[in-house]
C-alpha cells in the first residue's frame, strides 16, 4: 500500500468521503494485516497513520488536510469534515489495500488469454548468426569456449552414464539432453556466490562450477566418496562448496525454500541471489505458488527459472495448464517475468545476467521461462516414444539442437575448430570411462553411515537398532550385500 501511496497522483480520489479516512484505513489495515510485505518488512505499521509520513509530500499535504494534527491513532477521526470538491470523484475510484481501483460502468471480464502468445526472447538464429536487431550481453572468447565445451561435456556425460545404467552398472539415470544451453548458459551468467536450489535436470550448473566427472560418477555409484554417502538415487547431487543444495525428488519443494535462503542473503546484505529451478510440471504444484508468492511478498532475491521442456514425464503442457505457458504466471504474483529461447545459449546468458542484476539490485524475485524440449526420456524408467511422436523428438534433437546452434556461433567467431571438437570429445569420453571404473571399484559407504546424520547425534533408538542389525548380519551374512563394509 505504501508504494501505491507514493505513486498516487490524484489523492482526492483516494478516499470515499462519507467514511472518515482514518477509520476506513484502520478497517482495511486490520482486515489485510498481512497483505503487504513492504509494510511488514519496511518497518511501518499499518495501524498507525504515522506510517504514511515517510512517503510523498503529496501524502503529507493530504494528511494535514484530512487528519487533525493531534490524531495519532487510526480509528479516532470519525467526524472529520470533508470538502465538497471531493464528492464528484466518489464513484470513480475505490481505495483498497494494494492500491486505488477505478470504477467502470462497463461489465467487462478479463480475457483468459491475450490475443497473442508472449513472444520468446532470442539472439541466435538457427544459422548461428545473431538475428538482426537482437540486443544481448557480449560473451568473450574464453567464456564462450568454456560454455561450449561444458555443453559438450554435459552431453557426453549424459550419454555415457545413460549407457552405464543400461548395462546395469548404476541403478538409475536421468539426462539433461536438449537442455544443455539452459544448464550451462545460466551457470555462466551467475557467480559462485549465487545459491542454487536445483530441481534435478540441472547438473550443468555443478559441472560449470567445477564438480568433477569423478564426483558425478561417485554420486551415481553411491560409493564411499559420494558426498551423499550413498543414501540417494543417482543424479541427486549436492555440493556445499559449490553452493548447490542437494537435490531431492519431490517436485517444487525447493521453491518456497528458495525464498527462505534468499531472505537470509538479503538480511546478510550479500551481493548474491538464489537461483531456483523447476519444470513445467512443477508449476502445477502448490509449492510453486507458495515459492513465488513468498518471494514476492517478502521481497526475496530469487531468480526462478522454469525449464518448460514440454513434458512432465508423459504429460504434455496442454494437459498441465491452460495459461500461455509459465511466463504469464509471474504477473499474478507481482513478479517480473520473461520468456526466453532455452535452446539459445546467448539468449539464456543475456537473460540470466540481466535478471540476476535486477534481482540483486532491486531485492525482488524474477521469473524466467526458458522454452526447450526434453530430448531424452524422462529417466531410465520410461520410453518416451510410447507417449510422443518420434519425429517430434527428432526435430528438437536436430533442427533445434542448442549445441549445434551455439557451435555455429563459436565456429563463425573463429574460436572453435573441428579439431578442437574431436579432441575434446575423445578426451572427455576417456575421462568418463575412467571415472566410471574408479567409482565402480570404490567401496560403498560403511554401514554406520546408514544411521549417522538422521540427527546431529545418534539417538538411543538408532544406537539400539544399529546394534541389533549388526547381530542379525552376523547370523545371516548371506542376506546382505558384500560390498558394504559392516
Amino acid at each position, binding site marked *: 500500500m505504501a508504494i501505491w501511496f507514493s505513486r498516487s497522483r490524484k489523492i482526492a480520489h483516494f478516499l470515499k468521503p462519507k467514511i472518515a479516512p482514518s477509520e476506513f484505513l484502520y478497517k482495511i489495515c486490520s482486515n489485510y494485516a498481512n497483505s503487504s510485505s513492504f509494510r511488514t518488512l519496511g518497518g511501518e505499521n499499518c495501524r498507525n497513520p504515522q506510517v504514511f509520513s515517510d512517503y510523498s509530500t503529496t501524502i503529507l499535504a493530504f494528511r494535514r488536510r484530512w487528519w487533525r494534527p493531534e490524531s495519532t491513532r487510526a480509528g479516532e477521526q470519525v467526524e472529520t469534515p470533508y470538502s465538497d470538491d471531493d464528492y464528484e470523484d466518489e464513484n470513480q475510484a475505490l481505495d483498497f489495500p494494494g492500491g486505488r481501483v477505478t470504477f467502470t460502468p462497463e461489465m467487462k471480464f478479463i480475457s483468459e488469454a491475450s490475443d497473442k502468445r508472449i513472444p520468446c526472447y532470442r539472439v541466435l538464429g538457427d544459422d548461428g548468426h545473431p538475428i538482426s536487431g537482437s540486443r544481448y550481453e557480449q560473451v568473450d572468447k574464453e567464456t564462450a569456449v568454456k560454455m561450449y565445451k561444458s555443453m559438450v561435456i554435459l552431453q557426453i556425460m549424459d550419454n555415457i552414464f545413460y549407457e552405464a545404467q543400461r548395462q546395469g552398472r548404476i541403478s538409475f539415470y536421468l539426462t539433461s539432453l536438449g537442455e544443455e544451453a539452459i544448464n550451462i548458459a545460466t551457470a555462466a551468467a551467475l557467480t559462485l556466490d549465487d545459491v542454487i536450489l536445483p530441481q534435478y535436470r540441472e547438473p550443468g550448473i555443478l559441472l560449470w562450477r567445477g564438480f568433477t566427472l569423478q564426483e558425478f560418477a561417485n554420486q551415481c555409484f553411491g560409493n564411499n566418496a559420494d558426498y551423499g554417502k550413498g543414501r540417494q538415487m543417482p543424479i541427486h547431487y549436492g555440493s556445499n562448496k559449490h553452493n548447490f543444495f542437494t537435490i531431492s525428488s519431490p517436485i517444487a519443494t525447493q521453491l518456497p525454500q528458495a525464498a527462505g535462503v534468499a531472505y537470509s542473503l538479503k538480511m546478510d546484505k550479500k551481493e548474491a541471489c538464489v537461483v531456483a529451478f523447476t519444470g513445467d510440471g512443477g508449476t502445477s504444484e502448490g509449492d510453486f505458488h507458495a515459492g513465488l508468492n513468498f518471494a514476492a511478498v517478502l521481497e526475496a532475491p530469487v531468480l526462478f527459472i522454469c525449464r518448460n521442456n514440454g513434458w512432465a514425464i508423459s504429460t504434455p503442457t496442454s494437459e498441465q495448464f491452460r495459461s500461455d505457458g509459465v511466463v504469464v504466471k509471474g504477473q499474478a504474483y507481482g513478479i517480473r517475468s520473461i520468456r526466453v529461447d532455452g535452446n539459445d545459449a546467448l539468449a539464456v546468458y543475456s537473460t540470466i545476467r540481466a535478471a540476476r542484476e535486477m534481482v540483486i539490485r532491486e531485492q525482488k524475485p524474477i521469473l524466467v521461462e526458458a522454452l526447450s524440449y526434453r530430448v531424452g526420456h524422462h529417466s531410465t524408467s520410461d520410453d518416451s516414444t510410447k507417449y510422443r511422436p518420434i519425429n517430434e523428438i527428432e526435430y528438437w534433437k536436430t533442427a533445434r539442437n542448442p549445441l549445434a546452434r551455439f557451435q555455429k556461433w563459436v565456429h563463425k567467431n573463429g574460436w572453435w575448430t573441428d579439431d578442437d571438437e574431436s579432441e575434446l570429445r575423445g578426451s572427455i569420453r576417456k575421462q568418463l570411462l575412467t571415472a566410471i571404473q574408479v567409482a565402480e571399484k570404490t567401496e560403498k559407504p560403511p554401514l554406520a553411515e546408514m544411521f549417522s*546424520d538422521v540427527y546431529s547425534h545418534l539417538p538411543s533408538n538408532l544406537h539400539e537398532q544399529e546394534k541389533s542389525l549388526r547381530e542379525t548380519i552376523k547370523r545371516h551374512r548371506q542376506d546382505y550385500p558384500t560390498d558394504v563394509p559392516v
Partner: protein
Amino acid sequence: MASSLRRIGKLELFASRFESSTSNSSSGGTWLRGLSTTTINEERLIPHSQETGNKPINLFSAINQALHIALETDSRAYVFGEDVGFGGVFRCTSGLSDRFGKQRVFNTPLCEQGIVGFAIGLAAMGNRAIAEIQFADYIFPAFDQIVNEAAKFRYRSGNQFNCGGLTIRAPYGAVGHGGHYHSQSPEAFFCHVPGIKVVIPRSPREAKGLLLSSIRDPNPVVFFEPKWLYRLAVEEVPENDYMLPLSEAEVIREGSDITLVGWGAQLSVMEQACVEAEKDGISCELIDLKTLLPWDKETIESSVNKTGRLLVSHEAPITGGFGAEISASIIERCFLRLEAPVARVCGLDTPFPLVFEPFYLPTKNKILDAIKYTVNY
C-alpha cells in the same frame, strides 16, 4: 477462525473436564499445582534459579518470554507465520516485532507449506527459523515440507546441509469448542518421521525451557503447544534464560502401583485421576514424556519395572496413536514384569466432534476407571 478462538475465556467446558477446578476456574492454574511442584533438579537445569526472578505467568506468556530470549540471544533468529506481526492470534508473539523489528518478526502469506518451506531455506543458511503454524489442524499442507524436506535435509546431503535451526510451533489439542479444525492432536503423524524431533510441554515453565531447547537444538523440531493451557495454566517461571533437556521424560508424581504416561495438556487430566485414585489407595506414578521423538524409553521402562502396570493417555485418536508405540515398546521390554495389559485411554476414532467433545475426550473418570481395571486385573 482466529478471532473466534481468541475469545477463549469461557471455562465452563474446561471446568467440566477438570471437575475439581470448577470453583477456581477463573483464576486458572489451581489444578496445575501438582504439576508445578515438579521434581526438576533446578540447580542443574535452571541456572541462577536462586534469583528472585520467578513470577507466576501463563503459558502463552512463557512462550513469549522464550521467543524474546531466543531473538535477544541470537541475532540470526527469526519469528514468522500468519498474523505473527501483531502478536499472533494467541498473543504468543506480542511485542516481538516492536522490539526486534519487522525484518526479524513478520507476517507471512496464509500458506503453511510456504511458511515451512521458507523456514527450511532460512534455517539451511545457518539461521534460527522459528515458524508458527496458527493451529496444528492446519499443519498438513506443510506435511511434505516437514516429512520429505526438513526431516531428510541433513541425511540426504551426507551432512553437507542441514536445517537444524528450524522450529515449527503449533497450538494443538482440545479447547472446549474447537470442533474438527481447532482441536486436533496430530503428533503421531510426526512421530513416524526420522529426522525431526517432536516436543510437547505441559506447563508454562516447561514450555519456556523446552521451547528454548528446541530452538537451539541442531535438529528440526515440531513443537506443539497445548492451546487450552495458554491462558489457564499459570505457574512460576524463571525470568532468566534456561533450557530443559529434550528426549528426557520426567517423573512428576511418584507412585508404586501403576505408571501413567502422557504429555501436554493431558497430564493435568491424568493428575486429577491420580489424585482420585489415591483416595482409593492406589498409588500412581505419573510421567511426562515431553519429547515424543526421539523418546525416552528408559524412564518409562524403569518405572514400569517398578509398578508392573502401564497406562498411556492422549487426546489423539487411539488407533495408530503414539500410545500404541509406547505400549508395544514397553511390552517388549517389560513383558514378564507386566501384571496387566497396557491400558490406553485416548481420543476415539472419530473426527474431533464439537458438541460431543466431552464424550470424545479421555476424561478423568475414563482414566480412573482404567487405573482401577488395570490395578485389579
